């Protein structure tokens, strides 16, 4: 392992141990700005770790970013690692990021599905779900992006444990989901929630389970447009944006529908880049370009959150 975050290879994919070591390294070198919080344990007992970037204060308004809830989407976890370094490097140098951190805490969950991620590195590169056992079925795992208490069980998820979009037996049945739910509720002051997936080149906002429009649709749409423009400006990567149900498909029990219904207005989900050639097997050479273009869009959303208190 590298001895500092400077020598860490951000242009390569890393396994769970390496990413968790990186998080410790980050905290060890910068304990005034970043700390590690364990918000729960996965089904198989792995710690669920979140990085907290904070310049002080208590229960400040916060921005949440998570990457890799679908374990096989490796470019998202790799982007999460890059974001951590970017936040650290930017504080005190980048005026806009500094002002965000002077007013908000940022929570970053780099490996949202640790069991699934470990499984992709050891047994099945294409694993997407959690690793929980399903009573009465030999099929393993729940789609953690169908397991939230927002339209749970409605169209756009499956009741069959053997499918990739199995919703689970009940909302929050997955400890990986429950940990975030408990954290968000207990925190109570999260103002933006951004959940990052790959790949389809989309920036989406609620809703997914219903065709009703979000109350803040106009603002969410305008902000999405601005974020996508920033993203595209770097490498020309084309994104579409809109509500989940109108842009891709009906999906019930999804993360940002739940966060939006909890009152987190700026709830977004990304689908990162896809060249149309590799899908989940995006070559490591594309990690940095993907992460750096996504960072620009994240900054737009974070700046807007800072400038539009509610």
């Amino acid at each position, binding site marked *: 392992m590298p001895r500092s975050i400077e020598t860490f290879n951000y242009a*390569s994919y890393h396994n769970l141990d390496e990413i968790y070591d990186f998080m410790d390294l980050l905290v060890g070198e910068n304990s005034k700005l970043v700390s590690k919080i364990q918000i729960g344990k996965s089904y198989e007992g792995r710690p669920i770790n979140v990085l907290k970037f904070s310049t002080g204060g208590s229960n400040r308004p916060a921005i949440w970013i998570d990457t890799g809830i679908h374990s096989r989407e490796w470019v998202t976890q790799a982007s999460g690692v890059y974001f951590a370094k970017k936040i650290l490097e930017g504080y005190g140098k980048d005026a806009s990021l500094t002002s965000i951190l002077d007013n908000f805490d940022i929570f970053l969950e780099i490996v949202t599905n640790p069991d699934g991620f470990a499984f992709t590195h050891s047994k099945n590169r294409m694993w997407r779900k959690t690793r929980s056992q399903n009573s009465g079925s030999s099929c393993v795992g729940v789609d953690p992006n169908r397991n939230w208490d927002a339209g749970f069980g409605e169209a756009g998820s499956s009741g069959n444990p053997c499918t990739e979009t199995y919703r689970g037996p009940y909302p929050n049945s997955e400890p990986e989901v429950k940990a975030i739910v408990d954290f968000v509720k207990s925190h109570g002051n999260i103002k933006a929630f951004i959940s990052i997936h790959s790949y389809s080149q989309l920036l989406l906002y609620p809703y997914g389970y219903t065709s009703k429009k979000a109350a803040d649709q106009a603002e969410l749409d305008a902000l999405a447009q601005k974020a996508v423009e920033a993203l595209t400006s770097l490498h020309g990567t084309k994104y579409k944006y809109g509500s989940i149900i109108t842009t891709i498909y009906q999906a019930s029990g999804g993360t940002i529908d739940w966060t939006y219904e909890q009152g987190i207005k700026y709830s977004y989900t990304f689908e990162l880049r896809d060249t149309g*050639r590799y*899908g989940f*097997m995006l070559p*490591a050479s594309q990690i940095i370009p993907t992460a750096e273009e996504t960072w620009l869009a994240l900054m737009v959303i974070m700046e807007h959150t800072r400038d539009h208190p509610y």
Partner: protein
Amino acid sequence: TETFVGHQVLRIFAADEFQVEKVKELEALEHLQLDFWRHPIHSEFPIDVRVPFDSLQGVKVFLESNGIRYSIMIEDLQSLVDEEKLFMSRQHF
């Protein structure tokens, strides 16, 4: 360890909603063990699906007989997995 030797990822271009529905029929056939990376939604979006070797012929015949256009996005998934592993081990070393 699950291997993906001979698995291909097909990119399917449904021309209209009728063809999207035909691909959805494929999705429902569990014995084919298809893994949809991008699900059939509407004709504007391509569909990506990982097809195990044993199901390749059947899926391609189905698509061709229904006049549904497709291309091979990943010729052999395992070779990409192997490349990825090699790259990671080199970086680690």
